[in-house]
């Protein structure tokens, strides 16, 4: 069997039924094998799109996403997508072609040291040097990508490795002496955590993407309910706790809700689960949750006490650990009213500092568009976003209730992520309404994937919050740089609806507030790719906001006047 066919077999053995990619000289053999297989291939228009699609697919389904590119420029085009997956711990396998193995190191045509280039942003990588290693490498790659703290794994395959004809032997048992993720939490630590929770009168859960990765949302909800503990989530954790629950505080951090940031600042126990105390969450690090004892549950031991000193560290799978804590607490004597005063305080903060925005006559407020999406889809869409103000409004003004329904670039903050990610999400969950909230700047970074959506009949809906600005940067310039809008005005832009139509998608321009809901409904009914260009108020800001370097309770613009 040829190496290229063995690759297809290995993908199938890993349970893969769809891949995203674009061919080139060094993967022609692989694409030739693909031609005869029943593997679904989504042809993209730029390899960055393929990586983000694989990423969006993985986030929406929980399965490992796969992307393919040729050597050299194809491979380097994947880099941003791989880095993005790395920062947000998405399971992904990226396959690249490579120059013939005897030419490696000679600056051969389209040779790029892609294992070297991606080394800082992969969980692991392989360069295949023997065709008979293919089954083992693929098996290991999928195992590494999807277990422990997930992440991208790159497999670089010289063209001659794809061509060699050998006897195919499926991979044997995995033997990785240096890779043994800890799944079960330490029982003693679990007990210590349960005791700390039972003793706390002002506890807060701080839930991150790890809760979703572990599928621990039921355990989190049960624990929060049992002990009456309010829950705030990170951007990556949106959907890990239902925001329509009274105990929800929404998102925390730089653009978090006032009440989440106050609760974290004043709590006496902070329970971090699958979150990594990122600087966008903590603000000024030494004042973060300054009165609180801290429990940290995480899959990755390196995250514990990395940024903030932890009192009760627990390494393990969030689901296993939370279930363990729940069990312990059920055995213990509990005071049901212990957090009552705290919850009242939280309610008071919610009343005093609600999320809000000022309507402006005649304008479509960007926040309103998000609220309309929320109403029309009954909070049940898969919501993808690009990066910028529109992303933060999507975090704040949509009701996130289910895991794997919010797909957004958190750690890397990659403009251009949202649209291809939404295509990947729709491929993985075709029965869902999939909406990409885009910025007029971000959308243009991967706008070419309109062809991919149209040609493969993938009906995603792009809602552009068109403010004519690289809005988030403009906001910083307005607030901290004396309104010197250096290179952030992008009002010179295409007619997005016309561009969409030119690609064969549905295009609409919405300038009246009263048409917002209808436009969304029309796009959903159309069942084809659609671009809705909402002309929103240009110089609106995302509030509340914690200025860089400040404590998270030092928000600006969070007060209703």
């Amino acid at each position, binding site marked *: 069997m040829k190496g290229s066919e063995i690759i297809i077999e290995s993908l199938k053995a890993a349970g893969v039924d769809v891949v995203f990619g674009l061919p080139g000289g060094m993967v022609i053999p692989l694409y030739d094998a693909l031609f005869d297989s029943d593997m679904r291939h989504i042809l993209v228009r730029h390899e960055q799109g393929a990586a983000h699609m694989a990423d969006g697919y993985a986030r929406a389904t929980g399965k490992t996403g796969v992307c393919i590119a040729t050597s050299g420029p194809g491979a380097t085009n994947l880099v941003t997508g791989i880095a993005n997956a790395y920062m947000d711990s998405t399971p992904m396998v990226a396959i690249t072609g490579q120059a013939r193995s005897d030419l490696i190191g000679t600056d051969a045509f389209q040779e790029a040291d892609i*294992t*070297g280039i991606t*080394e*800082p942003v992969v*969980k*692991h*990588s392989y*360069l295949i*040097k023997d065709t008979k290693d293919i089954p083992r490498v693929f098996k290991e790659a999928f195992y*590494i990508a999807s277990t422990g703290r997930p992440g991208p794994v790159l497999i670089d395959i010289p063209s001659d490795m794809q061509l060699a004809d050998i006897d195919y032997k499926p991979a044997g048992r995995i033997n*990785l*002496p*240096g*890779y043994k993720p800890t799944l079960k939490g330490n029982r003693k630590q679990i007990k210590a955590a349960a005791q700390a929770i039972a003793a706390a009168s002002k506890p807060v859960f701080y839930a991150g993407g790890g809760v979703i990765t572990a599928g621990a949302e039921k355990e989190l909800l049960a624990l929060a309910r049992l002990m009456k503990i309010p829950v705030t989530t990170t951007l990556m954790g949106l959907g890990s706790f239902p925001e329509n629950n009274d105990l929800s505080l929404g998102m925390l951090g730089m653009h978090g809700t006032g009440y989440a940031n106050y609760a974290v600042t004043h709590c006496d126990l902070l329970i971090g689960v699958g979150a990594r105390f990122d600087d966008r969450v903590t603000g000024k690090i030494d004042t973060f949750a300054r009165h609180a004892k801290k429990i940290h549950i995480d899959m*990755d*031991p*390196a995250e514990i*006490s*990395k940024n903030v000193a932890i009192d009760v560290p627990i390494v393990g799978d969030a689901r296993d650990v939370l279930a363990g804590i729940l069990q312990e607490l059920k055995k213990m004597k509990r005071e049901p009213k212990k957090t009552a005063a705290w919850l009242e305080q939280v309610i008071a903060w919610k009343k005093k500092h609600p999320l809000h925005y000022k309507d402006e006559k005649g304008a479509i407020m960007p926040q309103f568009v998000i609220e309309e999406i929320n109403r029309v889809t009954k909070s049940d869409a898969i919501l993808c976003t690009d990066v910028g103000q529109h992303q933060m409004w999507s975090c704040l003004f949509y009701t996130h209730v289910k895991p794997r329904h919010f797909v957004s670039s958190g750690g890397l903050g990659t403009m251009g992520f949202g649209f291809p990610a939404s295509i990947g999400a729709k491929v993985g969950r075709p029965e869902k309404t999939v909406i990409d909230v885009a910025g007029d700047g971000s959308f243009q970074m991967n706008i070419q994937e309109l062809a991919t959506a149209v040609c493969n009949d993938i009906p995603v809906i792009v809602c552009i919050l068109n403010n004519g600005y690289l809005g988030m940067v403009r906001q910083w310039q307005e607030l901290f740089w004396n309104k010197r809008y250096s290179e952030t005005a992008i009002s010179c832009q295409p007619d997005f609806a016309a561009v969409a139509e030119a690609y064969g998608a549905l295009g609409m321009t919405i300038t009246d507030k009263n048409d917002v809901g209808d436009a969304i409904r029309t796009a959903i009914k159309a069942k084809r790719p659609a671009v809705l260009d909402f002309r929103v108020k240009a110089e609106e800001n995302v509030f509340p906001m914690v200025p860089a370097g400040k404590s998270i309770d030092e928000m600006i613009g969070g007060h209703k006047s």
Partner: protein
Amino acid sequence: MKHTLSVMVENKPGVLARIAGLFSRRGFNIDSLAVGVTENPDVSRMTITVNAAEHPIEQVTKQLHKLINVIKITDLDPDNTVARELALIKVKSDARSRGEVMQIAEIFRAKILDVSRKTMTIEITGTAEKIEALELLLKPNVAEIVRTGRIAIERGEK
């Protein structure tokens, strides 16, 4: 404070690059590095010395552990470890000073490897301090020094 990390790694291509990359990217400095295969040909041992306060060294080891090819890391306890370095020192020395250099070498239990009309090459093994002490004595006449990284092993039965 100096730490000596003994890092067992799978003997696979790219491992050294991954480890070196990790150190530079996380802002840790490697003082010295020595790599060699172990009694098991599939496993290499890297002895890495780093200068770090308590907290970063914990981050270093945890991050190192995340590399798939890293099997085991030991932060060697200096009181329970034998450590050695090797240096080759070329000294300018003619017939007149040769005797004196040989005497110094002998005191340090160093070996003379090569003698030419104007130079002598000395091999010394020992702790970093011992090597530096010798270097200091020979200093004005040292032409070249080549030093290995530190290698270290725990005392006793393992």
